[in-house]
Structure formats: structure tokens, C-alpha cells
């Protein structure tokens, strides 16, 4: 274990930033934390989490896939891929760190998505334990420990120090490079802080939310539940949930003619939209109820069924905070699962 005094943390950040881009939650003009590029003078936000998840680092809003040039009846396909540059994402919470595992299972299984893979290979993730989890947090529901976040390096803020522990080869390499700005440390303070965090997690209002009633093999049990009608009644189909969610990963592929050539790109899409996966015969989900149901069945039943029981939700609480009509996955779980 290593440590760095919080009063000297800028030296740590500067050392990392010497050789690669460093990103972390930084307060924007509106006071809300946003993942931004660190520069001297910028302060690491003390907010519990960012409004949008860090999935953008590996799965950006828009991504150029290829270019086309056409001349008469011939087409030229131009591969525009470039190796990603090394970068570090600092201050990731346990929930968001878990979301990368969930996205990996989608993008890194055969056929591998080379765009995502390149970013994942070049990104180093430094997580931070949550000193003050809040009332919208429920990562423990899905087996995530806010006190022990995953990542290449895990960190803990306590007693005026930042403690750092490497978990992977990438993490060890980075921590070794930071020897000049860190000192050796024992883990006593970290163990005490973990205890504190776990005590807080147990007392949170959502601590009793259980996922036991859900998982693979439960499609028949929940698909025709009459409760979906009431649950989805107010849903606007705005897509905010899919936008802020760390695990949502649907995208659309589109072409854009610049006048000098054609760009094929992908961009985030939302299953909450009425034209999502529109097909020649129409759509397979024609009501908001069906779209709403699909999203939650995906996270609570279909994803675990296809992924060794791992749920498609990490309990980050962003949907609780952001849905304009106050619907969220906890309400869905309590309404449906309570009938067991």
C-alpha cells in the first residue's frame, strides 16, 4: 500500500499527467461534477459521483467507424481507426468500476469491438472508495462493495491521506512510476475506513433492496405481470435513464454525407424511443409499456441469464436522481419482486 498526503495530491496528479491524459470528476460551473481533463489548478471534486457515468471513455457518445468515398459505381472503404492514446481515469466509484465489467462482456466477447477494446487497453482506472454513500445508493444490492472498489488501482481518502493499492499489472506499473510522489503505508487507516463505509451502507434507506427475486430463467414469471402497466404509465420515453446509466450500451449506426465524402458513425441510442430498432414490418415494441418492460427485463433477467447471473445494474442511483417522473429500477424491483 502507498499513500500521498491530500495536501500534496496535485503533485501526484501532475506526475500522472506528465505522460498521459488524466481525467477525474471536477466541478463544473453549475457545481455538478463532470469527468474532465485535469490541469494544474483544477481540483478533484468532492461530490459523491458525476451526473453522467464514465462509460463515455470507452464507449463514447459518437464514434467514427469508417469513411466511404464513392465514384460512379465504385466504393472505397477507408479504415479510420487509430490506436487509442494512454489515459487515466481517476476517482471512479465502485458502482461505475463494476459497469466496465458489464460492458466488457458485451463489447469484448467474440466478435470483439476493436474501438472499445483499444480504449480499454489504453485506459488505466483508478477507483476511490465512497466515504459518504448517499440515500440513492444501492450497489450492495448487486454484490458491489463501496468500500472496496475494483479497478487497476483502488484508493481510499481518510485522515488527510490518499491511500493507493494496485490490483492489476497496469496498476502496479503506474504505482511504481508514482513512487516519487507517494510513501509506503500500512493499511490500518484503510481498514478502519472500510468498516465505516460498510456501516453506512447498512443504514441507507435502500440497504434492504434485494435482487434475489430476479435473475436468469425468470422471463415467464415477470413478463406478463399486470404491474407493468401502472409502472410504465407515466414514462415519457425521454431516454434520460439510458443516458445516465453506466451499463446501457445500445447504439445506432448512421451515415453522414459531408459533401466531400461519407462518414459512418455510431451514436448512443435508447430502447425507450419509439423508433428504436425499427424494422421493415414496423416495430416489435409498439407501446411505452413494452419498451419500459424490455429495459428492466434486460437488466434484471435477460442480462443475468446470458452472463452467469451478473445483473445489468450496478446500483449507482443515477436513474433515481434523474428520471423526470421519478420512476427507477428500485421501484420496479420492489413492485414486482415483492410478490414473491
Amino acid at each position, binding site marked *: 500500500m502507498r499513500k500521498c498526503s491530500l495536501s500534496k495530491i496535485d503533485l501526484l496528479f501532475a506526475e500522472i499527467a506528465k505522460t498521459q491524459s488524466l481525467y477525474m470528476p471536477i466541478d463544473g460551473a453549475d457545481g455538478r461534477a463532470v469527468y474532465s481533463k485535469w490541469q494544474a489548478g483544477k481540483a478533484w471534486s468532492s461530490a459523491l459521483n458525476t451526473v453522467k457515468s464514465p462509460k463515455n471513455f470507452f464507449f463514447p457518445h459518437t464514434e467514427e*467507424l*469508417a469513411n*466511404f468515398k*464513392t465514384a460512379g459505381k465504385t*466504393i472505397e*472503404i477507408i*479504415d479510420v*481507426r*487509430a*490506436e487509442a492514446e494512454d489515459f487515466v481515469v481517476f476517482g471512479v466509484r465502485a458502482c461505475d468500476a463494476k459497469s466496465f465489467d458489464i460492458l466488457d462482456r458485451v463489447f469484448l466477447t467474440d*466478435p*470483439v*469491438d*476493436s*474501438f472499445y*477494446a*483499444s480504449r480499454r487497453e489504453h485506459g488505466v482506472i483508478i477507483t476511490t472508495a465512497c466515504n459518504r454513500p448517499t440515500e440513492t445508493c444501492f450497489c450492495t444490492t448487486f454484490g458491489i462493495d463501496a468500500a472496496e472498489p475494483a479497478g487497476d488501482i483502488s484508493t481510499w481518502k481518510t485522515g488527510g491521506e490518499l491511500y493507493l493499492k494496485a490490483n492489476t499489472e497496469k496498476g502496479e506499473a503506474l504505482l511504481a512510476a508514482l513512487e516519487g510522489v507517494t510513501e509506503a503505508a500500512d493499511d490500518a487507516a484503510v481498514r478502519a475506513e472500510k468498516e465505516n463505509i460498510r456501516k453506512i451502507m447498512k443504514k441507507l434507506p435502500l440497504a434492504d433492496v434485494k435482487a434475489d427475486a430476479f435473475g436468469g430463467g425468470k422471463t415467464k414469471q415477470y413478463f406478463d405481470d399486470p404491474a407493468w402497466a401502472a409502472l410504465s404509465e407515466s414514462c415519457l420515453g425521454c431516454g434520460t435513464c439510458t443516458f445516465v446509466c453506466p451499463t446501457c450500451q445500445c447504439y445506432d*449506426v*448512421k*451515415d453522414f*454525407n459531408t459533401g466531400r465524402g*461519407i462518414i*459512418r458513425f*455510431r451514436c448512443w441510442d435508447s430502447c425507450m424511443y419509439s423508433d428504436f430498432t425499427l*424494422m*421493415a414490418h414496423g416495430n416489435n415494441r409498439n407501446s411505452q409499456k413494452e419498451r419500459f418492460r424490455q429495459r428492466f427485463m434486460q437488466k434484471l433477467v435477460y442480462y443475468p441469464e446470458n452472463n452467469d447471473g451478473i445483473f445489468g445494474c450496478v446500483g449507482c442511483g443515477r436513474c433515481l436522481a434523474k428520471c423526470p417522473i421519478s420512476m427507477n429500477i428500485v421501484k420496479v424491483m420492489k413492485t414486482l419482486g415483492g410478490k414473491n
Partner: protein
Amino acid sequence: MNMREETLIPKIGVITDVRQDTPDIKTFRVVTPDGKKAFDHRPGQCAMLSIPGVGEAMFSITSSPTHTEFMEFSI
């Protein structure tokens, strides 16, 4: 960069025949630029077909897999 195989980047196909099967269905015969069948397929499988500038969409491969020289799409 990275010459990793990438399924999101399409390959070029050459239309060697267009057959008007019904007033609103045409069948397109497609091969690779060097005249071969693009890939082996099984009945019921589909392919993403692209027109640059328009986009891509999924279409059933309507020819039999037993044809080893070409692939057809009835659209």
C-alpha cells in the same frame, strides 16, 4: 492502425445481377470484388447491407447455402 478484424466495418460487394421477381421485389446477386461468395451461410441467416451515405440494414440471405459461388438478397 490496428488491422484487427472489425465487424462494424463493411466489406465491398459487387452486384452481378438484378432480377425483377415481382412488381415490388428485386433479387440482387452479390459476390466479392474477386468474384467469390462473400461468406458461407446457413438457412435463415441475414446480412447487414450498406449503401454509403444511406446507411445499413439487416436483410435475409434468400439464396440457398448450397450455392457456393454467390449470395442473393430478395428485397
